[in-house]
């Protein structure tokens, strides 16, 4: 091994981060080379110095007391499960629903039934183009909630899955129980755990359709009762309902506009796109006559994106979405640097940032995301 190669790797060697073969080669070289050996000794010396770094920090009992008091105000574990962030809850619920579907021997006939149902639904929709057709179809309509009265989560059918199974419904005293959902799309869940958008999906129980008023009541009631129980259906758009069975939650059913399924992902995608545009703008920024570069707009945008980034980072962290979090973490230092620039930094000041953008290949990374 040459000294040049050894010196390139000496810190990694010192940190124990080289592979066994390289380590052996370096050990052999170091035992024979005084200069390289001295460099290694210098690193050891420095580490000894840093080992003496005493922050004089003690974890005061008050720290745990403060943490404890704060978490005591948190809901208990079971309540937390019911109140976990909507998207992560939905994602887990969707995964659970599909996991339930997978091993069933009756899955193929179910799919066939779904297909027939979807075809019939599509035909029916085609023949009844008025907005009222995009509603829930349910039986036991005489029990429909009277205008605006609240419905508790426990009153909502508790076991409804994406797909029609026998015995999926649970009778409710106030809300017409939902027996099945027919999804126009029966594709497998996406890689991130979400089922695809069920275009034209509808709920059915062999009875009559829920009226728009009944649907609105359902929405209102759920919105009032629990933030994890969401019903979003726009009367003026095609109903795209997804009902998910979450065996682990007593809260029951989650209905949502299918488009909102990917809201979180779309938010991140939009955010990443904006960040990419911002970095491109910085990368292409040209100095004016006085050799400064006006980045006032970029600064403003960067400050906005920083706030969004922090929120999205936290959401990704909570959801355990490592890939998203990694991208957001990569973006952060750039946003920070841009946000803290002067309105008209010099060409030199911007150059270092441009170089980092180039060196880290951050734009390419964002494009890939």
């Amino acid at each position, binding site marked *: 091994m040459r000294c040049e190669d050894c010196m390139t790797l000496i810190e990694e060697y010192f*940190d124990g981060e080289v592979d066994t073969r390289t380590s052996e080669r370096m050990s052999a070289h170091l035992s024979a080379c005084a200069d390289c050996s001295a460099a290694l000794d210098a690193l050891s010396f*420095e*580490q000894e110095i*840093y080992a003496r770094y005493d922050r004089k920090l003690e974890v005061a009992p008050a720290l745990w007391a403060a943490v404890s008091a704060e*978490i005591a105000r948190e809901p208990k574990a079971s309540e937390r499960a019911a109140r976990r962030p909507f998207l992560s809850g939905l994602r887990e619920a969707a995964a659970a629903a599909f996991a339930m579907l997978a091993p069933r021997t009756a899955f193929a006939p179910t799919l066939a039934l779904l297909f027939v149902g979807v075809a019939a639904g599509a035909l029916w929709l085609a023949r009844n183009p008025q907005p009222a057709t995009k509603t829930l179809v349910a039986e036991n309509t005489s029990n429909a909630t009277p205008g605006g009265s609240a419905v508790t989560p426990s009153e909502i059918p508790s076991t409804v899955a994406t797909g029609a199974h026998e015995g999926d419904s649970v009778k409710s005293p106030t809300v017409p129980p939902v027996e099945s959902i027919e999804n126009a799309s029966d594709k497998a869940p996406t890689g991130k755990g979400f089922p695809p958008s069920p275009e034209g999906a509808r709920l059915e129980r062999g009875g009559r359709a829920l009226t728009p008023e009944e649907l609105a009541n359902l929405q209102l009631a759920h919105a009032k009762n629990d933030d994890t129980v969401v019903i979003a259906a726009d009367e003026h758009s095609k109903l795209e309902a997804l009902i998910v069975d979450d065996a682990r939650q007593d809260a029951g059913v989650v209905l949502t506009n299918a488009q909102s399924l990917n809201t979180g992902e779309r938010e991140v995608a939009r955010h990443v796109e904006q960040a990419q545009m911002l970095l491109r703008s910085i990368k292409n920024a040209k100095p004016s006559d006085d050799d400064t570069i006006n980045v006032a707009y970029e600064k403003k945008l960067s400050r906005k994106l920083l706030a969004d980034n*922090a929120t999205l980072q936290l959401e990704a962290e909570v*959801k355990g979405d490592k890939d998203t979090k*990694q991208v957001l*973490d990569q973006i952060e230092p750039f946003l920070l640097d841009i946000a803290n620039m002067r309105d008209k930094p010099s060409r030199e000041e911007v150059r270092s940032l441009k170089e980092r953008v180039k060196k880290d290949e951050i734009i390419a990374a964002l494009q890939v995301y």
Partner: protein
Amino acid sequence: MGTMSLELGMPGAYTGALMNSTEELVARVRSGDEEAFRLIFDRYSRPVLSFIFDMVGDRDRAEDLAQETFVRAFRALSGLRDETKLSTWLFSIAKNVARESLRARRRDAGNVEIDGEESFELHDHGRTPAGELLDKELSDVIQSALMRLDEDKRLVFTLKVLQQRSYEEIAEITGFSVGKLKTDLHRARAEMRRRIGPYVGGEQ
């Protein structure tokens, strides 16, 4: 586990903390056992507090941020996928909390710092052999030098040199690529060497 439960709240409870695996502790917290979270706190509060202090350079603020870190961790524990990486995950939260705080402080102060450098001045301790420099003074010198690193370099330097984390762990905590963290670490070491060297009689 039964033995552990008996030890909780009694002298020797910390022995229990050492014997519990992180997976067990996380599972217990998830099932509603908040005492298990106390054990997690006991195990990780010191390194987390030190790490945050190294990032923000202020004792009181570090304590507040450590508190925030553990509260966030408690709230988000259900989202932790790999329980064996609890420590890395906690440091990741601590990193975010610290960076948010630094950012907020810069905004409040209306500072404009291209590379996030803080204006810490080193005291003139003269050129003194390391052994003769008092530990207190040495610690002041190290802390001042640390705070003059830009945030990314300070982050990787702290995690590697002061917290002895592996490159893989640092990459997970920071979200940096291994290439970037190696570069930042190399530069951070060089800067620290340049700033501390004169005080400890080393090279430079």
